[in-house]
């Protein structure tokens, strides 16, 4: 059930009604939280009921693991227990997500040196959302180990926070220390928050269905005919894909965060206008913020972070970005994408002084800041080629077409509305960049707000892609 399908709207409508009816009429303060947990499992079961068993197993490992970690008072014993739990969680993730990749790579490598190895495949289907809830679970276990949070004894709150349906498919990877307390307390309806949630859902739908999905259809055409594409087509497809993936993922995140607000749950922000960033490190503070902060806290810092030699730090950066790349999928294209971003970071750290925020130093001036922003966007756009490509070979074929002379102007006509829409979106986002999301218009008068909502809905109806294209990040 994709967020952009009407079924999701129907599901949320009835879930909303049931949860708040339960809050009002069922005795016991936790009834609606239990109901929300059941609805979340029901939502997951609509994809494939067997995945619920996996989610339940991960939940049990996290809940029991947290208590088990807390029970071991001696630090070395705790460390061993944490290692076991991390291996268990990563083992499950690896089995479902990476087994085929490593088996294929191993047999290809063996074949390269003349040894024939029979390929082993388990025929496992990758459960949607596994990367998100496994990382959330790991986050909880490591936090308990680090004593930055106490283990919860509230099984319903723990299970509810992990299975909460809006964040199940594509995040954000909200930390359990932020989420569990929201499920542990009595749920009250917050009308202001719910209204803002609906606005955010609408904004997410506009970004996803109007911008991302329409661009996606065109970018797919260029990629499918990449052997015959010319330089301008490739260039346009590269830039538009940058817009597509941003609108796709941030749109999905907005729908998730907005839906959560309907149930009085606040999920973490995942995007902060990343293409306005000056510098790669600044980009990663604004792009998929929950994953980048997760990788920083649980990989980079665990490896030693900044408090090591320069070479070691650079190696840590590379390892962290390779892990981020692999998190997206078991493919060399994601490894290449992660390696490129690691390299960008290393180069930026080596060439420039570390800064506390992503603002350019004063003497830099606006012109240099714009150049830096454009350079950052260009570097990120180049890396997206590897992210989008089905294989590394396809990526190089695609890039090689940059050397081909552009075709007649009339062939670019289908790109014009997409480029204009992208430019319009970024102009709008520039002026609303201090807002939490693009439709945070709660301060306006009711008639003006209704005009804004109705306009957004009409734009969605008349230009939105209604074929329910899956979100790019749902597959991860």
């Amino acid at each position, binding site marked *: 059930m994709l967020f952009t399908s009407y079924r999701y709207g129907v599901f949320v409508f009835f879930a909303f009604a049931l949860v*708040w009816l339960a809050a009002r009429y069922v005795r016991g303060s936790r009834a609606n939280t239990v109901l929300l947990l059941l609805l979340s499992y029901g939502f997951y079961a609509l994809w494939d009921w067997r995945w619920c068993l996996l989610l339940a197993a991960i939940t049990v490992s996290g809940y029991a693991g947290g208590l088990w970690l807390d029970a071991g008072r001696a630090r070395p014993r705790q460390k061993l227990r944490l290692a076991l739990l991390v291996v268990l969680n990563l083992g499950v993730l690896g089995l479902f997500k990476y087994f085929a990749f490593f088996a294929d790579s191993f047999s290809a490598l063996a074949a390269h040196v003349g040894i024939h190895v029979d390929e082993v495949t388990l025929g496992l289907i990758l459960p949607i959302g596994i990367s998100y809830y496994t990382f959330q679970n790991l986050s909880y276990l490591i936090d308990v180990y680090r004593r930055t949070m106490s283990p919860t004894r509230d099984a319903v709150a723990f299970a509810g926070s992990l299975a909460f349906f809006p964040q199940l498919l594509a995040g954000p990877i909200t930390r359990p220390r932020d989420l569990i307390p929201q499920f542990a307390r009595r749920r009250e309806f917050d009308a202001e928050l719910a209204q803002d949630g609906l606005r955010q859902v609408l904004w997410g739908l506009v970004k996803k269905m109007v911008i991302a999905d329409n661009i996606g259809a065109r970018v797919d055409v260029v990629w499918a005919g990449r052997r015959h594409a010319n330089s301008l087509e490739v260039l346009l497809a590269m830039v538009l894909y940058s817009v597509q993936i941003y609108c796709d993922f941030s749109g999905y995140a907005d729908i998730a965060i907005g839906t959560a607000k309907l149930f009085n749950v606040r999920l973490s922000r995942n995007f902060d206008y990343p293409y306005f960033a000056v510098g790669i490190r600044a980009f990663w503070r604004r792009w998929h913020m929950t994953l980048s902060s997760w990788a920083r806290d649980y990989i980079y810092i665990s490896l030693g972070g900044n408090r090591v030699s320069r070479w070691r730090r650079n190696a840590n950066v590379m390892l962290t970005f390779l892990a981020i790349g692999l998190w997206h999928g078991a493919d060399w294209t994601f490894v290449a994408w992660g390696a490129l971003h690691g390299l960008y970071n290393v180069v930026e750290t080596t060439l420039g002084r570390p800064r506390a925020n992503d603002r350019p130093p004063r003497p830099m001036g606006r012109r240099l800041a714009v150049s830096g922003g454009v350079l950052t966007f260009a570097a990120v756009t180049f890396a997206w080629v590897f992210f989008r490509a089905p294989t590394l070979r396809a990526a190089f074929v695609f890039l090689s077409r940059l050397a081909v002379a552009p075709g007649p102007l009339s062939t670019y006509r289908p790109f014009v509305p997409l480029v204009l829409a992208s430019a319009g979106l970024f102009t709008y986002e520039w002026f609303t960049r201090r807002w939490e999301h693009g439709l945070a218009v709660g301060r306006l008068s009711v008639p003006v707000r209704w005009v804004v909502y109705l306009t957004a809905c009409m734009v969605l109806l008349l230009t939105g892609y209604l074929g329910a294209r899956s979100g790019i990040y749902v597959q991860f």
Partner: protein
Amino acid sequence: MTPFRFLVRFVVFVLVFVALSEAWLRYVTPASEQPIYRQSRTTLVYSADPHAARSGLSTEQRVPRRLATWHVNDAGWLSPYRYVRRRPGGALIALFGDSYVEGLSVAQSQHLDVDLHGLMGPRVPVYAFGMSGWYLEQYVATARYVRATYDPDLIVILVGEGDVSASVRRSGGFPYWYHIVPSGSGFREVPPTQVYAVSRKAALAHKSALIRYLRYNAHAQIPGVHGNDVEGAPTGADADDLGRSAESQTPSAESERPEVESVLPATRFLVDRLCADNPGVPIVFAARGDRYLPVDAVNGRPLAPEMEALREVCAEQPQCHFLDLRMPFSLDWARHHERFEALDGAHYNAHADAVAAAAIAASIDSWHLLAGSDASSGAGSP
């Protein structure tokens, strides 16, 4: 505010939005209208319902743009002519096809049948029997009804790759249309097992501009509402797309031979059947040119396997003629550089209809296919 009041306000907003979009799609950018279809219980012929809306406006694209106004004649076909049985000694051309012949994308005065009639002269009426989604089996079945009712002395069928492959590869499963199934070493024809009638719900939904917009302009799947047509119907367009993807790989004639062989038996069965049902009536299969651009690479490119199979079967039947429309389209493109696709990107525009009509008329003339009748042709050279 309580959750209940919140929900009520949300529902009110949805209702206001539905009313606004209904008004918008009725008066500002009108949603597409399509004929209501019906199926005769006696002849099992599937056509537009002349007792429902007789005319309407077809539009295309998400921000709807006007394509054409259509009219349904007394017989239930989208044509400006009144269909009557051929007079003894007179001429009559029956033109069959799918949505290209139905022609919702082109003004009726520029339809293929109207163009062909204009070229053949006033004494040669051209009756169009076009239906969106039809393929070879439907032409064969409808031709029997047309022969019994109007007695044409020439049959022209505008075929695309999908029309043939939908017949021979995806037969069965759609209960309202004829299809063929393997039987022993050959095939047999299976008549419709159900008679289609538009449901009351679909007819009601058809009155809503918003639903028509979602269905015909946005091509969205609406739960429980299949508009006019029926879910699951195999269409020529599906297979046509498959044809295009195969075409983009520019295969050689040798590499496609197995494909041709695989579709030959069913194609032969259907063409034989058509000839047997219409003894003595010449049949022209006009294989559509590429509706997309460019068409300049046609020379030397082999026909798609389904078309090649049809060409080979036609060569076996003296009654049948195969006209490859790609060449006239290619020549026209080289001469005028005028595009052939309608606004919907999936059908002929008026120019393409004119090019196709000229090529068909010239072929009829040069093959002397109407020599037996007292009609005089005014067709030019292709």
